[in-house]
């Protein structure tokens, strides 16, 4: 028995960062908005308070804030010749669930992508010729430019209160910032966080090698801040429990700390939690959505009619929602046709460990999720790739986020994996090691994609999402190159032993790498190679907008959240000023 509810103007699938911002804007503009969140409502008080929130076993190991993969896992295989199996324990990536979404457990690293990234295919051809790339690479332009997104980046960063130092304001290079960044219209809302000792060591060494270190842009704030919505945040206390945890201090920018208080006070908005959306419903023409169907925690099925449907879930779930709803043609890797699930990309994370003498005290636990020091000299297209055989790069930085006892124990290569030898090595190196992150880009390729699993289903009987992924040769070459650069910096820091670990194939889901899964509902100007147009509107069903990192045609060298925030405000602009005034296609196919 499906219960049909009263029609609303807008229904939003997922109330994380994207859902909260979209809902706030549209509710404020007078539209009736319903937000459907599959997880629970949760707030800084009481849910995120210590000491419970610092429970490493619960949050780090048992992944308490993540999507419940006993009910809703993804299946995975390295190649389409293999049979995919369900990922029963999240390790490689960590999709969140619950009010506020994955941003509740983020690190707060708030980078913009560079102008070049949005026109990657065109710029790569211009600079390196049309035969430079491996044959399997399917990178493409975004259909939106950095200049178009800049005001929206700015708005998002001021919403968060991001702490950083500008490197380029309107074309003028700013001392102390990142000289490689694309021009921003003004300084960050708050100054950078304090530099920790490992950051200072890195900065000196990187400078001595002629590189350009700068403080990591952080949405764990350096000082109290009141955002343009009137919501107040506190300064971060460097407790070292950001990623995988919620913040108990109102110091990390999350939906809870920057926008939900305003959204929830608006009577045009209704939040419903515990709602597992099954599909977006289409009319008989299949060109118009009529709403969504969801099941609540008591197992009751509801139909929520709406004039406009916005999917604002984690990237992987946006892709799955379209596949389950029959919106857009699924991608076929054999023929290379179809679009939904195409251009799934990841990021290529390498590391360098610099082991110091016992008199160099690092205190790794004194950190925030984004209080590091880094360089962009080997990120994106900031260096000449001629003759290197790959595109892309990585930021290299002493950006260690914590010294938590269960998760953090750097030991040199060759150390036994357990027992007395391992214990002695942990004790010896814990406080005398600097771990660099080499945060690398990822090209999209013909063979990496997402589709529905033919065998495995979720707790509601729906097919799981199937991921087919391995690291492209392009990215493995990139990882080897940037790791060698990282090792040089480690040596210049005076470390006794420097161990580089370039990312290697095969990709495995059993080791944490990054939660920056992208693609599958790619944006663009050509419906043959994109699922949504440049305003994130479905080409096939114009009253569906798909807003998420699933829109990225490939992934850049930086954490994706800031760009997603910019895209969100960019899409809202088009929704408010154009679509809702005159519903229909914003771009003709």
């Amino acid at each position: 028995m499906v219960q049909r509810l009263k029609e609303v103007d807008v229904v939003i699938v997922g109330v994380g960062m994207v859902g909260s911002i979209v809902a706030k804007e549209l509710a404020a503009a007078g539209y009736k908005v319903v937000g459907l969140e599959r997880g629970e409502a949760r707030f800084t008080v009481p849910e995120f308070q210590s000491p419970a929130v610092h429970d490493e076993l619960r949050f780090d190991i048992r992944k308490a804030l993540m999507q419940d993969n006993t009910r809703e896992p993804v299946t995975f295989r390295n190649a389409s010749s293999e049979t995919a199996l369900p990922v029963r324990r999240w390790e490689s990536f960590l999709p969140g669930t619950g009010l506020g979404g994955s941003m509740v457990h983020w690190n707060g690293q708030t980078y913009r992508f560079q102008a070049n990234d949005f026109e990657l295919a065109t710029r790569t051809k211009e600079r390196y010729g049309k035969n430079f790339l491996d044959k399997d690479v399917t990178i493409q332009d975004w259909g939106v430019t950095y200049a178009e997104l800049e005001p929206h980046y700015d708005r998002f960063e001021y919403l968060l209160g991001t702490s950083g130092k500008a490197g380029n304001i309107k074309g003028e290079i700013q001392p102390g910032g990142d000289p490689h960044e694309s021009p921003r219209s003004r300084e960050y809302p708050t100054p950078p966080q304090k530099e920790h000792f490992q950051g200072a060591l890195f900065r000196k060494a990187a400078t001595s090698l002629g590189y350009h270190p700068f403080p990591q842009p952080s949405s764990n704030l350096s000082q109290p801040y009141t955002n343009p919505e009137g919501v107040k945040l506190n300064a971060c206390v460097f407790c070292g429990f950001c990623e995988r945890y919620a913040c108990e201090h109102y110091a990390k920018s999350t939906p809870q700390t920057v926008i939900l208080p305003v959204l929830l006070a608006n009577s045009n908005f209704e939040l419903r939690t515990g709602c597992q959306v099954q599909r977006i419903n289409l009319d008989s023409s299949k060109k118009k959505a009529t709403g969504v169907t969801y099941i609540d925690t008591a197992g009751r099925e509801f139909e929520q009619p709406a004039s406009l449907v916005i999917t604002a879930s984690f990237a992987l779930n946006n892709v799955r929602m379209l596949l389950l709803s029959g919106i857009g043609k699924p991608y076929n890797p054999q023929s290379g046709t179809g679009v939904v699930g195409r251009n799934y990309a990841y990021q290529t994370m390498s590391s360098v460990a610099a082991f110091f003498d016992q008199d160099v005290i690092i205190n790794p636990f004194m950190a925030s999720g984004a209080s590091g020091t880094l360089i962009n000299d080997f990120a994106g297209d900031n260096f000449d790739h001629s003759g290197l055989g790959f595109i892309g790069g990585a930021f290299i930085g002493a950006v260690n986020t914590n010294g938590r006892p269960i998760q953090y124990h750097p030991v040199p290569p060759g150390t036994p994996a357990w027992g007395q030898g391992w214990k002695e090595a942990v004790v010896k190196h814990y406080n005398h090691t600097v771990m660099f992150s080499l945060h690398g880009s990822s090209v999209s390729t013909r063979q990496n994609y997402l589709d529905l699993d033919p065998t495995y289903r979720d707790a509601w009987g729906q097919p799981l999402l199937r991921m087919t992924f391995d690291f492209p040769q392009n990215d493995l070459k990139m990882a080897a190159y940037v790791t060698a650069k990282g090792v040089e910096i480690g040596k210049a820091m005076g470390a006794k032993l420097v161990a580089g670990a370039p990312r290697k194939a095969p990709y495995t889901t059993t080791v944490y790498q990054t939660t920056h899964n992208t693609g599958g509902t790619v944006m663009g100007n050509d419906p043959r190679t994109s699922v949504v147009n440049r305003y994130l509107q479905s080409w096939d069903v114009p009253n569906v907008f798909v807003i998420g990192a699933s829109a990225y045609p490939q992934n850049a060298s930086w954490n994706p959240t800031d760009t997603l925030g910019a895209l969100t405000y960019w899409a809202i602009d088009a929704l408010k000023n154009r679509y809702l005034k005159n519903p229909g296609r914003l771009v003709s196919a």
Partner: protein
Amino acid sequence: MVFLLALGASVIVAAASPKAGPESAKRPGPAAAVICQSCHGANGEGAPAAKIPRLAGQSADYLDKQLRDYASGARSNEVMQNFAKPLSEADRAEVAAYFASLTAPSIAPNPRATDSQLARGRQLAQQGSEAERVQACDNCHGPDGSGVPRSAPYLAGQSADYLAAELQSWREGKRKNDAGKLMSSVVQRLNDADVSAVSAYFSSLGAE
């Protein structure tokens, strides 16, 4: 019910086991400490009614920083500035370490606090309040306000009047020697009733 029992128990413990002073002052203090003791008590027990804080067992790093801040004017108090200014860096460290090493009898709970005040204070201390967007005091000040050396002083058993006066001072911007404006930004969101409640609550816990 659990709350009441726990609260009741801590009050009883505080009242029934005063940690008497004699043995704690077993080693002679530094010369400079004598001046402190004339107001803060022989064992650093404080003078609660006069808003003079308890120092016994307080974090040495915290005490050292306060002396430094009094001397420089970063924490404003004319009386304390006069005492702190002449102290050398070594004197300060020695005095701070001395009081950190002392134990002293606990101060009796604030007799003026009502049960509902104590309950509200306990809520703010242990859980915070989403309505005011105030996080739990214990996040930084430790379980039951027992302090987290080096940075966060203990609050348990501190003079309620002293705590209330300091919170007021943070709120008015008179006291501002906190890193990242951590105290001032939180206290901005507490009203007078909450300031009294949370001060009374921490005072009622008794000192270790």
